C-alpha cells in the first residue's frame, strides 16, 4: 500500500481527495480533488505516486466523480454535478482533459456508471421516469448515438457493473423484498433476457467493481445506529441504564420532553440521506408516527418551542438546500430559507426563543429570519472561545449543531478548519 496524495492534516489544508478510479494498465489514478477554491476538480496521478495534474477544473461543474476508464485508457467516464443542480454523464479525455457531455439528468445523479469491456457502451442507473422514486438501468452508447433501458421494474435497481467478458451487467436490486445481487444478460447494448438473481440477502451492500479474477468486491454496511433513552448520573456522567426506542440518528427532545424525534431510513435505499424520514415518538403513550416530508435530504431536525414544528436542515425535492419547517402532525413542508448556493445538507439553524424566527449560519455569518415576514438581518456577536483543534469526538459521533440555548442567546460553531464557538445575542 502506498499513499498517492499528501496534503497534510485537515487543519493544515481543507483540500482532500475523493472518488478515484484506476486506469486499465494500472499506471494512472483519476480522482476528484476538493481544491482550495472550494470545488472539486478532476486530477490524475501516477499510481507510483508523485505529482498530479489537473485534467478538468470548472467551478460551474463544482462536483466531479470519475467512475471508470475506457478500456483503451483514453477516456475517463465522469459524473459532473453543476451549480444549477444538473448532473451530467461525461467522458473526459485522459490526456487533454477535453470534456464531452453525453447526457444531462436532473439532480438525482447515477449511483454508479461503468464502461462495457469493448468501450462501446456505458451503463448507469437513474430514476425510471420524471417524478419516480425507483431506479432502472440504462445503457448509453459511448458515441452518444443511442440509448436503451436495460432493466425496467418497480424495484430499486442500482449500482450497475459490467462483467469482465461483457455479456452481463451485475446490479443491486431489492426485487424480491431484500437487497441482492442480480445480473441481466446484454447483447449489443440491449437486454438479452430477464434479470436473474445471483445472490440474495446481501443486506446493505454497495457493489464497487470486479477484479481481474472475476470476483465482485463490494462495501457492506452492517448494523444500524440505535436510538436509546437512558438515565445519566449528573455528577459522574455515567449511563445508569438505557432502553432501545428505535433505529436512526439525531434524536431531539421536544421542549416539554413529551416527544422524541429522530431521523430514520425509508424504503429500499441503501445509502445516503435521500432516504431519510422523521420518526416522532410520544414518550407518554409510546405511539409513533413516521413523517415523510417532501425533502430529498434531511440532515438535522430541531423542535420548535411550541412543539408544533420541526426545523429541518436539508434540501427539497428540487435539490434546493436550506431550512424547512415540517408540521409535526402532517409532515407538510414549508421552506423557511431556500438558497441555490446552500449545500445539500442545508444550513445550520435554530429556532428563536419564541419560535417566530430562525437563526442560521450562512457563509460564515449568522442571520435571523422572521417566519412571518421573511425579513432577514445579520446577527452579530462575540467569540466566546476557540475550540481546541485537537479535540476528537468519539467514533461515530457528530459534532453538536447548537451547543447552548438559554432564551436570549444562541450558540453556534463556525468554521471548519479552526472552529469557533459563537454566542449571539438575539436582541
Amino acid at each position: 500500500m502506498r499513499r498517492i496524495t499528501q496534503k497534510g492534516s485537515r487543519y493544515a489544508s481543507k483540500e482532500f481527495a475523493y472518488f478515484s478510479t484506476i486506469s486499465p494498465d494500472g499506471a494512472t489514478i483519476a480522482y476528484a480533488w476538493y481544491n482550495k477554491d472550494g470545488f472539486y476538480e478532476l486530477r490524475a496521478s501516477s499510481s507510483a505516486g508523485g505529482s498530479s495534474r489537473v485534467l478538468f477544473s470548472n467551478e460551474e461543474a463544482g462536483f466531479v466523480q470519475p467512475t471508470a476508464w475506457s478500456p483503451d485508457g483514453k477516456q475517463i467516464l465522469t459524473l459532473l454535478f453543476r451549480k444549477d443542480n444538473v448532473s451530467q454523464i461525461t467522458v473526459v479525455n485522459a490526456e487533454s482533459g477535453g470534456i464531452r457531455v453525453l447526457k444531462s439528468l436532473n439532480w438525482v445523479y447515477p449511483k454508479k456508471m461503468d464502461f462495457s469491456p469493448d468501450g462501446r457502451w456505458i451503463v448507469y442507473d437513474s430514476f425510471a421516469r420524471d417524478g419516480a422514486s425507483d431506479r432502472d438501468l440504462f445503457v448509453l452508447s459511448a458515441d452518444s448515438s443511442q440509448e436503451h433501458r436495460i432493466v425496467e421494474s418497480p424495484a430499486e435497481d442500482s449500482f450497475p457493473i459490467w462483467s469482465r467478458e461483457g455479456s452481463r451487467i451485475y446490479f443491486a436490486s431489492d426485487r424480491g423484498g431484500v437487497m441482492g445481487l442480480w445480473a441481466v444478460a446484454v447483447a449489443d447494448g440491449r437486454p438479452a433476457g430477464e434479470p436473474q438473481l445471483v445472490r440474495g440477502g446481501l443486506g446493505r451492500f454497495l457493489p464497487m467493481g470486479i477484479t481481474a479474477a472475476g470476483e465482485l468486491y463490494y462495501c457492506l454496511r452492517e448494523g444500524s445506529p440505535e436510538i436509546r433513552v437512558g438515565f445519566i448520573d449528573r455528577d459522574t456522567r455515567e449511563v445508569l441504564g438505557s432502553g432501545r426506542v428505535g433505529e436512526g440518528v439525531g434524536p431531539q427532545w421536544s421542549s416539554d420532553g413529551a416527544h422524541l424525534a429522530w431521523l430514520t431510513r425509508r424504503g429500499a435505499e441503501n445509502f445516503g440521506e435521500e432516504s431519510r424520514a422523521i420518526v416522532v415518538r410520544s414518550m407518554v403513550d409510546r405511539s409513533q408516527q413516521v413523517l415523510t416530508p417532501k425533502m430529498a435530504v434531511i440532515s438535522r431536525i430541531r423542535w420548535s418551542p411550541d412543539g408544533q414544528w420541526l426545523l429541518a436542515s436539508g434540501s427539497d425535492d428540487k435539490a434546493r438546500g436550506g431550512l424547512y419547517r415540517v408540521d409535526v402532525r402532517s409532515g407538510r413542508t414549508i421552506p423557511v430559507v431556500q438558497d441555490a448556493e446552500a449545500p445539500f445538507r442545508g444550513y445550520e439553524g435554530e429556532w428563536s426563543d419564541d419560535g417566530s424566527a430562525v437563526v442560521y449560519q450562512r457563509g460564515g455569518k449568522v442571520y435571523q429570519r422572521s417566519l412571518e415576514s421573511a425579513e432577514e438581518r445579520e446577527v452579530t456577536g462575540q467569540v466566546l472561545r476557540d475550540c481546541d483543534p485537537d479535540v476528537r469526538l468519539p467514533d461515530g459521533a457528530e459534532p453538536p449543531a447548537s451547543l447552548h440555548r438559554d432564551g436570549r442567546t444562541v450558540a453556534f460553531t463556525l468554521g471548519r478548519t479552526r472552529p469557533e464557538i459563537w454566542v449571539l445575542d438575539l436582541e
Partner: protein
Amino acid sequence: MRCFALLLCTAAFADERKVPLGLDAYIPAPESNPLSPEKAALGRALFFDTTLSRDRTFACATCHDPARAFTDDKPVSKGVSGRTGTRRTPAILNRAYGKSFFWDGSATALEEQVLKPISNPLEMDLAVEDALSRLNETGRYPALDQATLAASLATYVRTILSGDSPYDRYVAGDRSALTTEQLAGLRLFRGKAGCGSCHVGPNLTDERFHNTGTGWRDGRFTDQGRFAVTGLEEDRGAFKTPTLRDAARHPPYMHDGSLATIDDVIRHYDEGGKPNPFLDPEMRRLNLTSEEKSALVEFLGALNGTIREGL
C-alpha cells in the same frame, strides 16, 4: 465493398451530428425513428412546403420562422384564411430533448405532434390524407405515407438546436463570457428570483407544467391548459415551462402572448404571478429592485445563442 461504404457513411454521420455547446451529445430519438441525414433533409423540405395547408399559403415555417428563432412575433398563432388560434406559437428549439409537446403537453412524441397543426382547422386545416395525396402528386418527394411524413418532420425538428450562447460558454468554464451585470443576473436567476426552479438544465426548462396565473382573467381561466389533458384540478391553468434559449429574440411571451416584453415578464413574476385558486406554490412575491430586474434582463440576453438546423 457495399458494407464498407455503409460504415464510412455511418462514421461521417456521427461526426456531422455535433451539437452546439451546452447541449447533450446524445440527441434522443425513438428506436422506431432514428436520426438520419436523409430523413432530416426530407423533413426540412416538407417543413417549408405550403402544400401542407388547405389554401397552400402556410407552411410549418410560416409560423415557426427560422429567422425568428422558429416562432413568430404574434401573440397567438394565425392560420389559413386569417383564422386566429388561442395560443402563442412555441419556439421549437431543442425539442429533441423534450418530454411532451404543445403548451399543454397533449402530444407525447414529436411524431404525433408534427401532424396535428396540419389538420388543425385554426392552423393549416388540411386532413393528413389529403396532404399526403397532394404531396405525392407534386413529384418532388418519394412516395409518402403518414408514417414517413411524421418521421421526416419529427427528425427535422430534432435537428433544430440552439446553444453556444454566452451562458453556455460561461458554464463551460469561460469566466469572461458574461458581463458583470449578466453575472449578477445569473445569481438572481438561480437565487432570489427563483427562475432556475423551473427553467433548469441545458434547455432551461423542467418540461413540467405550472400555473403562473397568466390564463386567469375576470375570475376564470381563459384556457384550462394542462387540465384539458389530465383532468386533474391541480393542472387547471398550467402550461409547460418553455425554454428561455433565444427568448430575448422573440417576444411576446407566455402561452397566450399576453406579455409584450421581457420587462413585463419579470414584473409578472416579481409580483408573484396572478393569484388564482391553482397558482403554482413556487410563485411568490420576489421584491426585486429595479437594478435586479435590469440584471435579469441582461442575463436573459446571454441565453441568445447559435441556432442550427439539419444534419
